[in-house]
């Protein structure tokens, strides 16, 4: 254990030195990007697209209904292009919702599932994938190669963006961290992972493009709900509520900042 830890530390420091020397184009990152390009051609995320499509179309739940009447913002049942225009304001609930939150809302209202049951185990682990993660992967795939256009026309959408910006920069917790501590400057990284600076227009889309993503470590599919939750954990913040206003606000902030870039569909992660 001790030995392997020291070896890992040595590797880590060697990589760190390399990263410092070439902040943007270190060989580790370049090699990984090549690997990712190959994997993108056969991304296992497609398995969840298929599974999500089945879940979308199958009559399920206490109300024995499919999700084909679910309104993702472009009208009931319209999936094509919906994902790149989320989060958005929904008049029926009087609030802004992100993609996964809206899907869960539909599962509750149309199919009669219990929100509490879904929120008990909302993230993938091992061989378990929650249904909303598969469904959001299917929905996201129907916006492949479309331009990100998260709306800001409704006052509540603008207010949600402002709230997201405030949360992004809010320093708190035992380590006095904020999202911006890691994602507000160029050249930051966690271990060997280079971190994008979401306050810059050219790097902001990295918060949107590639999600939901298949993570090769462990072979699980993860959504943005998980990503936000795990960032909170890494900051030693209290755990945010699943499908909560906080997460929607952060996703609105980063989504709007990504507007104009082309969404490539579900992605693949290390």
């Amino acid at each position, binding site marked *: 254990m001790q030995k392997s830890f020291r070896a890992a530390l040595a590797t880590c420091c060697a990589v760190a030195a390399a990263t410092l020397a070439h902040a943007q184009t270190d060989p580790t990152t370049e090699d990984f990007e090549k690997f990712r390009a190959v994997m993108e051609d*056969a991304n*296992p995320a*497609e*398995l969840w*697209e*298929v*599974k999500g499509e*089945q879940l979308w179309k199958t009559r399920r739940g206490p109300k024995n209904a499919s999700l084909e009447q679910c309104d993702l913002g472009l009208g009931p049942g319209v999936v094509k292009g919906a994902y790149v225009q989320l989060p958005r304001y929904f008049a029926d609930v009087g609030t802004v919702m992100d993609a996964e939150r809206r899907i869960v809302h539909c599962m509750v209202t149309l199919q009669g599932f219990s929100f509490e049951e879904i929120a008990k185990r909302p993230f993938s682990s*091992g*061989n378990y994938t929650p249904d909303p993660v598969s469904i959001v992967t299917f929905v996201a795939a129907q916006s492949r190669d479309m331009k990100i256009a998260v709306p800001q026309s409704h006052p509540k959408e603008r207010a949600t963006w402002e709230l997201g910006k405030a949360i992004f920069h809010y320093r708190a917790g035992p380590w006095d961290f904020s999202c911006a501590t890691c994602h507000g400057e160029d050249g930051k990284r966690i271990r060997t992972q280079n971190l994008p600076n979401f306050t810059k227009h050219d790097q902001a889309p990295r918060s949107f493009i590639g999600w939901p993503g*298949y993570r090769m470590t462990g*072979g699980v599919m993860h959504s943005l709900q998980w990503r936000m939750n795990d960032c909170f954990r890494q900051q030693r913040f209290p755990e945010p509520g699943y499908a909560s206003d906080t997460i929607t606000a952060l996703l609105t902030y980063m989504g709007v900042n990504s507007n104009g870039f082309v969404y490539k569909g579900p992605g693949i992660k290390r």
Partner: protein
Amino acid sequence: MADPMKIRASLQGDVADVRVLMAHPMETGQRKDASGNVVPQHFIQTITAQLNGKPVFGADISQAISRNPVFAFKVKGAKAGDKLSITWIDNKGDKRTDEVVVGGG
């Protein structure tokens, strides 16, 4: 029940370029769960592909293959509209068969 496969079979001349993604845990039997118990072996053993019912590809694989594996192979003499079906069977006897139309996107 096992989750569906994702199969692509694009046609280049008379050669079908097949790429198949399979949803499977592919447990090696070497891993332990959170409570320290060994996770039992569970992996695909046999893969077969048939073009219009005629076997064109087969493979025996083991637990050395990754979770949610990808396989790619070429089938000579395929035509647009041919039916390609792929079946896997794992060590627990679970199986799954999916079918696509060659050149059908």
